[in-house]
């Protein structure tokens, strides 16, 4: 395209800008739509980025020059391992760490992370513990000498309004001791945690002898040997970089789902752009015709429309990034807390900008807008010069396009289905879903026409003249309102789909919980239980009142090489238990597990390692490599890294580890409360033993789930908002179209009330129609998210529950929004004399 051909573009754009200024509602709605979409993408990315930094910051403070971390996944390390590392492995730079969360009485709603270590040992790694501002010259020594003394980060001290020398009361763990602030620790802005000596922490949490991890320096030459030796005991050795990667792995499910939803929000925004740009093209048909008559070439007109869309996108992106920052900052807390609940305790509230996230969002949004503007721009450029074409013939042309749209819809739908059926890559799955949604959007005008014809027919038969009129009028104006109706449909479909997905997830988790937490009382057995104590302990257990049976379990890392997955060694009570949840019958599983070197694997593990029933999984034991046969797959949602399970006696035989982590007690019918109470009393004097009500625990997990999905609810609300915007958009277009018609009717004597009623009928029908189309689309979307995306990403199988409540919500939303959107313009219209309407072009 030579410059000569494109010359005059600025003039055209000036005209376009004035046009948008004359339709501020459209302008604002579209920019808002883009902004919301961009904001969602940016917010989610930034919140996840901040959470990652938070994770890093917590470990960074104590990390110093450590090169590795040693931990027992999902459990605690006994501190005797520290002695082993120092003495047998000759690694003097080994530092113990205990990390737990607590809550201060001053701030009951928020939890704070406590990092406890040996300050003496910490000097070996040159950690950041040295930087304290304190009146005393020896704050770290005080930590050791004075039980209960702690250091607070600056930010936390400010939050709690305390300084050196003040005391702090705790509500969690319940009032064991008061803490004294020995000094302040300058740390990253937003970092809020407490540093204490291990003596304080172990006493506070009732965990004598237990550590969360050991930070160490390992020379490269020793690394492999140490890792193997530790893995055979269920301990995982990771480099610093690996641990950060582990964070990514752990939170991948969380992040992917959130990102999928944010992209959906952006898609809805893009549809809004499409509908607005379509509308403006349609409104300016005469102008485009004039320009073409004056000799403006097709590419010039095309460029004008596309550039207008890009300008909208630019403003929308700018606002979206700003709003996304605000939203993200608010989400950081939510995301951090959720990740903290689900995986680990993060300690930084700092919200950090990531240029990458912003550029990505802007890039995707711009591409989406370009794509959205493509069709309207093409239509504009195809305008016949000074078309004397009447609207009716235009409608006829539209109708001719209808088969094309339906054809296109089928093509997209087929393409999408093909992609989804044949792909194992997440990105392609998203692309497939996109195609399916586009197909649905293309079908929407055709479906709406069919629906309105049906309503018109009903109106005719039932002698409802105005109903039929409203329906027909709606159908006739679909050339103008089609794109907006599609946008509305997509938004409502997203609203529905997300709602069904969340509901299905929750139901699946709830159901699975009944299998995996299948006991009445859970008892946590401390690692430091003496042999002498332990005899007494087991004796007391067996004599508890109301006990039907017990399940014993031990959790470590899976010694299969990288030790990332978990291993559960379990002796499940055959009658009283229900674990595991699997397609294979439970009796069969239990029988196979106890009959030899067999193992069952969770779905994510099976997917990751490509394990089918009958395959072999090699595990490294102290006695060498042993091949375990996979007997079945089971459902487990605790980790996407995977979980394997074997019989406890088989485990003991191979791994020389006699410890038990958890005893699950099953009560006789109706005896669960008695069992709980008896357990509490009988085991009260064993240090570190914790007795928990399993029912409460299940409830707690669901609470965490709900909190996790608060974020998706936020997204869902945004989708709903965009839906409402889309419908306003659509109805604005529709109103302008029928204005003249309404003017004629009013001039002919129709009352204002009737005009309003007709308007509401039309807009209500539009909303209802779009809503009805959105329901199956939303259900399909949910189905795809559950069965394709999550299954691809993590291998989980979930139930699909199309909850009627959600469906009803969506219909009500669409229809109510439609009526509401029709109300105000109708009122505005009837407040002016009919002549105004008649003059309308």
């Amino acid at each position, binding site marked *: 395209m030579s410059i000569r051909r494109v010359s005059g573009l600025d003039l055209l754009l000036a005209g376009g800008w004035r046009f948008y200024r004359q339709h501020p509602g459209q302008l604002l709605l579209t920019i808002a739509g883009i902004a919301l979409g961009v904001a969602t993408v940016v917010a989610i990315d930034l919140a996840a980025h901040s959470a990652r930094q938070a994770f890093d910051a917590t470990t960074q403070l104590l990390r110093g020059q450590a090169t590795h971390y040693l931990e027992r996944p999902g459990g605690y390390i006994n501190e005797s391992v520290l002695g082993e590392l120092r*003495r047998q492995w*000759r690694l*003097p730079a080994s530092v113990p760490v205990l990390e737990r969360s607590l809550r201060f009485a001053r701030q009951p709603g928020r939890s704070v992370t406590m990092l406890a270590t*040996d*300050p003496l040992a910490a000097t070996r790694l040159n950690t950041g513990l040295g*930087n304290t501002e304190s009146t005393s010259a*020896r704050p*770290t020594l005080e930590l050791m000498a004075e039980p209960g003394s702690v250091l607070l980060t600056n930010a936390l001290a400010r939050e709690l309004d305390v300084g050196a020398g003040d005391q702090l009361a705790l509500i969690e763990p319940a009032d064991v001791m008061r803490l004294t602030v020995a000094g302040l620790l300058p740390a990253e802005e937003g970092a809020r945690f407490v540093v204490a000596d291990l003596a304080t922490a172990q006493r506070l949490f009732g965990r*004598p*002898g237990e550590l969360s991890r050991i930070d160490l320096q390992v020379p490269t030459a020793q690394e492999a040997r140490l890792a193997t030796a530790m893995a055979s005991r269920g301990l995982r050795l990771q480099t610093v970089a690996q641990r950060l990667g582990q964070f990514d792995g752990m939170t991948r499910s969380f992040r992917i789902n959130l990102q999928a939803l944010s992209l959906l929000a952006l898609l809805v925004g893009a549809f809004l752009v499409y509908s607005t740009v379509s509308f403006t093209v349609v409104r300016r048909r005469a102008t485009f015709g004039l320009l073409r008559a004056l000799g403006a070439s097709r590419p010039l007109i095309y460029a004008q429309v596309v550039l207008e869309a890009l300008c909208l996108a630019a403003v929308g992106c700018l606002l979206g990034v700003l709003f996304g920052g605000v939203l993200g900052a608010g989400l950081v807390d939510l995301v951090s807390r959720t990740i903290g609940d689900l995986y680990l305790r993060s300690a930084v509230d700092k919200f950090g900008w990531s240029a990458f996230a912003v550029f990505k969002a802007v890039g995707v949004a711009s591409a989406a807008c370009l794509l959205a503007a493509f069709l309207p721009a093409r239509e504009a450029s195809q305008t016949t010069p000074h078309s004397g074409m009447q609207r009716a013939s235009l409608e006829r042309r539209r109708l001719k396009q209808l088969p094309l749209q339906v054809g296109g819809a089928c093509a997209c739908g087929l393409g999408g289905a093909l992609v989804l059926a044949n792909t194992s890559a997440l990105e392609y799955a998203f692309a497939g879903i996109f195609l399916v949604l586009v197909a649905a959007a293309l079908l929407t005008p055709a479906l709406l026409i069919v629906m309105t014809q049906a309503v018109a027919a009903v109106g005719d038969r039932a002698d409802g003249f105005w109903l039929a009129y409203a329906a027909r009028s709606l159908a006739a104006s679909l050339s103008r309102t089609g794109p907006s109706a599609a946008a509305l449909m997509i938004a409502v479909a997203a609203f529905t789909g997300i709602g069904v997905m969340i509901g299905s997830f929750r139901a699946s988790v709830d159901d699975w919980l009944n299998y995996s937490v299948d006991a009445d009382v859970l008892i946590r057995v401390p690692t430091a239980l003496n042999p002498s104590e332990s005899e007494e302990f087991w004796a007391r257990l067996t004599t508890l009142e109301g006990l039907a049976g017990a399940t014993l379990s031990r959790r470590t890392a899976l010694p299969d090489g990288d030790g990332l997955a978990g291993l559960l060694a379990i002796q499940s009570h055959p009658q009283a238990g229900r674990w595991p949840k699997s397609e294979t019958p439970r009796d069969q599983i239990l029988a196979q597990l106890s009959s030899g070197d067999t193992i069952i694997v969770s779905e994510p593990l099976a997917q990751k390692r490509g394990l089918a029933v009958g395959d072999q999984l090699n595990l490294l034991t102290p006695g060498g490599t042993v091949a375990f046969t996979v007997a079945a797959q089971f459902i487990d949602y605790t980790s996407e890294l995977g979980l394997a399970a074997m019989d406890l006696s088989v485990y003991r035989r191979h791994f020389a580890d006699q410890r038990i982590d958890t005893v699950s007690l099953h009560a006789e019918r109706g005896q669960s409360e008695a069992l709980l109470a008896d357990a509490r009393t009988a085991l009260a004097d064993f240090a570190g033993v914790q007795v928990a009500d399993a029912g409460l625990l299940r409830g707690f997990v669901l609470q965490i789930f709900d909190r996790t999905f608060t974020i998706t609810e936020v997204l869902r609300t945004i989708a709903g908002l965009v839906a409402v915007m889309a419908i306003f958009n659509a109805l604005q277009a529709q109103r302008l179209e029928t204005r003249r018609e309404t003017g004629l009717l009013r001039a002919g004597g129709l009352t204002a009330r009737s005009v309003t009623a007709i308007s509401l009928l039309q807009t209500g029908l539009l909303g209802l129609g779009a809503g009805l189309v959105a329901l199956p689309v939303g259900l399909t979307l949910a189905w795809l998210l559950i069965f394709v995306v999550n299954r691809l990403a993590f291998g989980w199988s979930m139930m699909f529950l199309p909850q009627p409540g959600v469906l009803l919500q969506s219909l009500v939303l669409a229809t109510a929004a439609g009526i509401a959107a029709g109300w105000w313009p109708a009122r505005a219209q009837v407040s002016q004399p009919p002549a105004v309407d008649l003059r309308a072009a």
Partner: protein
Amino acid sequence: MMRQPPVVVFARLLATLAVLIWVTTAVSQSERPPLTELSDVLGSAAGLEGYKRALLPGEIQLPRDHGPHPDYQSEWWYFTGNLETEDDAEFGFQLTFFRYATRAPGPTPANAWESPQIYMAHFAITDIAGDEHRVVQRFARPAGEVAGARSEPFAVWLDDWSAESLSEDFLPQRLRAHDAATDIALDLILRDGKPAVLQGDAGLSAKGPDAGNASWYYSKTRMPADGTLRFGAHEHAVRGLVWLDREWGTSALGDYATGWDWVGLQLQDGRDLMLYQLRDATGAALPESSGSLVDAQGVRRALTDSDFTMHPLDYWTSPATGTRWPTAWRIDVPNAGLELYAEAAVADQEQALAILYWEGSVNVLDGRGGERVGRGYLEMTGYEPDSP
């Protein structure tokens, strides 16, 4: 063989411990801790109430007392030795395990980290031919079995440094230490030589005039040893004689003592001589100074401050700390007919650790003829430039 008032030692130790932590964590320089900090903290050093005290002589029982005494405030196992390789290259070594209690014994702690004990260890090797001295210091708390001591069978350890009996008997035992950063390592088997010698009054060693101001003190003055030693790139097979000083107690000190000098000499005629001299501000020996002379059969003769004299003859000034250390001494024990010179085998065996002191291998020369009549170890404290 930290001579004298474990009190001074301990108080200073605790103080410098604190300062050390402060210093190493604030900036990573190896400066000497400023004395103002020391004296500040000295004033607030932990009190001596509640600990067990050495009161009446005769309570030492071996082999039980080889192990730790946690009710006393401080304690050490002090190994020093002179070794030579097959090619007669000579080395000296020191491996000391210290135990300190940061507060008086009380109720059973809820967890191992609440233990009031802190362990410190110094490990040094002197390459005499190479005129080089390397030393490492470590601290640890006994939790996680990282550091500790026990008796029957005997062992004391901190990280991978340890002295451990090979059977139910105290000896033979294995001494091991290793540090990758300074690249020194030691692995010796110690065998029984002379019987253990109780110092002071049947093991009760007074530090001052007040009752209870004393420690329990015994030594194994001559244990034949052989094994391997590593210094830098080279590893050597070595053999020689090792001296162990064992002391534990709870004691305080008057301000009149500035420092002390201690020697443990192993003579070729089979005799072992231990002398410590507590000095006042003028450099004169205080009446608490004392010593022991152990004959070839292991019979001990106690020496009081009037039985011996120690005079510095030559000095060496440390470029690192500016301290002027006496590195050559004239030692006379008239009633035993001993006129000796003790000369530092290497001048710079200064150790600027939690405490600033000089601990090193010395050659023992005949006072008249000048020929070498033995080897030993010399320890000196209290020579800081601005000390009184």
